[in-house]
């Protein structure tokens, strides 16, 4: 009997000097692996525009129906994202979310990633429906997030869906450019064969004329 107790104590003593596997949260925080999936972050481009174009693909991919989006049209006065469309409302219900990461897989612009943010507790369920303002990274920062760790390095000489974009069609850069082509210079309008009638047409529809 005593022998067994000593054996057990021996095990304890053996572990005594080793570094503990627990941490004293919240004073100390654990170093998480780069692919850890915590709360979502919405990213921006270098120029401050939002990457999200409000395409609903993340909401469509979500197995838990946790994402709700309402999209709207960018205007020249109020440009939120490149191209025509942006998400006016972007809500993630973290109570429904199962942190599977399908949303970041579905995203064509790399706008949404699951980051190392895990401090998600609240006494009010409605606090855990995160809105766009809470999810967006602050103006001035333009990170790519964990997508960098998830995306494999593109092999050379893979087909390009877009001119001038060499490399692997990773669903990020390529279609991001495609949906963001609102920034590219448009060819001179040849609507109705000549500019004159095109302008007439716009006048009829009460649109401001170009060059006025």
């Amino acid at each position: 009997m005593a022998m067994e107790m000593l054996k057990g104590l021996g095990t304890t003593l053996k572990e005594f000097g080793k570094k503990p596997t627990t941490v004293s949260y919240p004073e100390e925080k654990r170093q998480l692996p780069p692919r850890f999936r915590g709360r979502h972050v919405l990213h921006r481009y270098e120029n401050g525009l939002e990457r999200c174009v409000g395409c609903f693909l993340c909401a469509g991919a979500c197995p838990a129906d946790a994402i709700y989006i309402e999209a709207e049209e960018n205007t020249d006065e109020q440009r939120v994202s490149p191209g025509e469309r942006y998400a006016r409302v972007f809500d993630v219900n973290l109570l429904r979310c199962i942190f599977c990461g399908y949303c970041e897989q579905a995203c064509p612009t790399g706008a949404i990633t699951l980051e190392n943010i895990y401090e998600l507790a609240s006494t009010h369920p409605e606090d855990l429906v995160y809105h766009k303002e809470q999810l967006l990274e602050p103006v001035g920062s333009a990170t790519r997030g964990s997508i960098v760790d998830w995306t494999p390095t593109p092999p050379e000489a893979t087909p390009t869906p877009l001119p001038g974009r060499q490399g692997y069609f990773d669903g990020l850069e390529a279609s991001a450019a495609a949906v963001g082509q609102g920034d590219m210079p448009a060819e001179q309008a040849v609507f109705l064969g000549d500019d004159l009638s095109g302008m007439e047409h716009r006048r009829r529809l009460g649109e401001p004329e170009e060059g006025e």
Partner: protein
Amino acid sequence: MAEQEELVNLTIDGQPVSVPKGSLIWAAAQKLGIEIPIYCYHPKMDPLGACRMCFVEVEKMPKLATACTTTVAEGMVVSTTSAKVKKGRAGTLEFLLINHPLDCPICDKGGECDLQDFTLRYGPGGSRFDLNKRHFEKPIPVSENILLDRERCIACQRCVRFTQTVAMENGLVMEQRGFRIEVGVDPAAPFDSIFSGNVVEMCPVGALTAKNYRFVTRPWELKKTPSVCGNCSVGCNVRVDVRVDKVLRQYSRTNDAIDDGWLCDRGRWDLDWINDTERLRTPLIRRDGQLQPVSWDEALRFVAERLRAVRDQRGARAIGGIGSTHTTNEEAYLFQKLLRAGLGTNNVDHAHGRFPATEPGALPWAWSDSIAGLEQASHIVLLGADPYHRQPIVDLRIRKAIRAGARVYVVTPEANRLDRLVAGVIRYTAGHTGTLARALLNIITSDGLARGEQGAQRAADRRASVAQETPERAAQVAGVDADALRELAREIAGAKGAVILYDEAATLEPSGATLAADVLDLALITGNFGKPGAGAGPLLADNNSLGARDMGLLPDTLPGYRPVGDAAAHAALGGAWLATLPAEPGLSYTEMLSGGVKALYVMGANPARDATPEQLAALDALDFLVVQDLTLTETAQRATVVLPAVAYTEKDGSFTNTERCVQLVRRAMQPLGGAKADWEILVGVARALGLGWTYLSPAEILSEIGRTVPLYAGVTRRSLGAEGVRWPFAPGERTPEGRATITGSPSITWQMLAEGVARAQKPGGELIAPRGRGE
């Protein structure tokens, strides 16, 4: 379908198939369930062969053939899956995608896009095109409702062919040539057609998108429910697309007999009244002069108490009910049942008021032929009717008839969109449609233009009654060209098959009291009756104008147009309803609004909107006014109790359209919180009155209608199927499973209407503008 069609036998992918001679390979493959991808071809339009997507390999043909332009031949062997075909399709797609921007994530079509789908199924994985794509300013408006993104366009010309050949309206045209080709509109010919939305639906890419659908959702977010449009009396088959709690659009759900696959812009987009934030979410009771929210229980009990009190103090005749031409057949039926069997009064009517000649025993003035029958007509006469604005898809069918060679005469007081296309246009002073009809009868009876024995007989009967109504008199009174009328009469009399249509509203004109009967006589005397492509009838205003009447929302007839005094009907209905029914006719719409009743129950109608000051005063003087509606209408603002109802997208039921087709409406979304379907409210009131109604669903009510209303005999929710059935129903047969089936007959025959004609001459009816619920 009587004559035997010549069939051609061919083999597609090893499967034998027989199709009528002249069919396209595409149609034959369709019959076998083999998909052949198409962009430019549209089954409702002539083939073009522009997109080169539908390549198939035909044995012994040196090159790939386009399935949409190649007609079948005996013994043809077609392959849709050979390596050559696959390569051809992939090549076509690679070309189509050269300038396509691939902005699917932000494109409204993304998710229901043929270019996307076929690229996934048949396309190459990548592109060898490494130059810059074309860029255009995007999007540009082509009309008030539609935006054009030229980058996405693949120049299939579906939209252009629709506006030019189907709608025959100003609209989209192809501009330029070669790689410069693009869709455009001419500023001098604006694209303002009511059919414009169809180009958005048929665009196989996201080049044409709707302004009010722009970026509001993605297709996979939508709940799609097959239903029937509730915006006018045509009853086009639609798919209601709902996201969460909003109806975003209606798409066409092709029913060749009714809409031919098209839908008008009103049906497609005019749905804001359903999404209205002003809609009522709780019952209201007037207390201290203010309408105050109460619970459903309290409201229903209050309504029952007050109705009972009025009945006990002043008798059942002091209670009246105004029903709706917008609610379902089931609700109209329950409404009149509540008033007749529950409260014991025949004071039941609807907004149109007494419809001419719904006399005891007669059928109503229903359109004796069908919408599809218009295609077979050699002549179509529109008498005071403007289908373009009021029944747009009927107008589109008339255009199809024009293309098939029909001579159309537009006889209207005001300019009509069809004027440009028709054989003859006759103008007259508004309000004299009836005068014109009688003048036409006068010409036909006095010039001996009657055809057939029945026609001659009827002409003899009518000659005296229209002897004074010469075209010259019409010219004097109505400012019409007498010679033009004579020519028109001769055209009708000489027609292979003429359809004469008038607007329901014209029967309410001072001159229109006998219009319905006169027009029917016109058709009967000239032998244009009881066969496809010939007939007469009204174009009705609302989605269930006919159903409301069928269900007995009339003061003098029970459901199925049986007179209120009919003993047999009393025995049958009273037995089924476990009640003694009142035998004397009730008060009409106008009589009820002129102080004839003390308590008024209004379901889905808004009499106050078009009421005269006297009628408003009468409404205010009522002891008790209950209103069931979606919003606080002018009438509801005067009510004692307001009960919130729901729109047709939020409930099950059935509508009967202007050509007598009974069709199912399906619930496409959750009812607005706090509101209830009209039938639920009626059941609630009946139960509060102690009537012991036990209906649990509209299907149960419809089955009761099938049992108790001879006109709808045998109707069940199941028997109506996906495309509805037209009354009068032919006797049912039994399917092997023992289920009764009903088949609709296309035309009302002479025998059916003969009795009605005899009773036609009936004065009455004032001018009441047709109204719409939730407008």
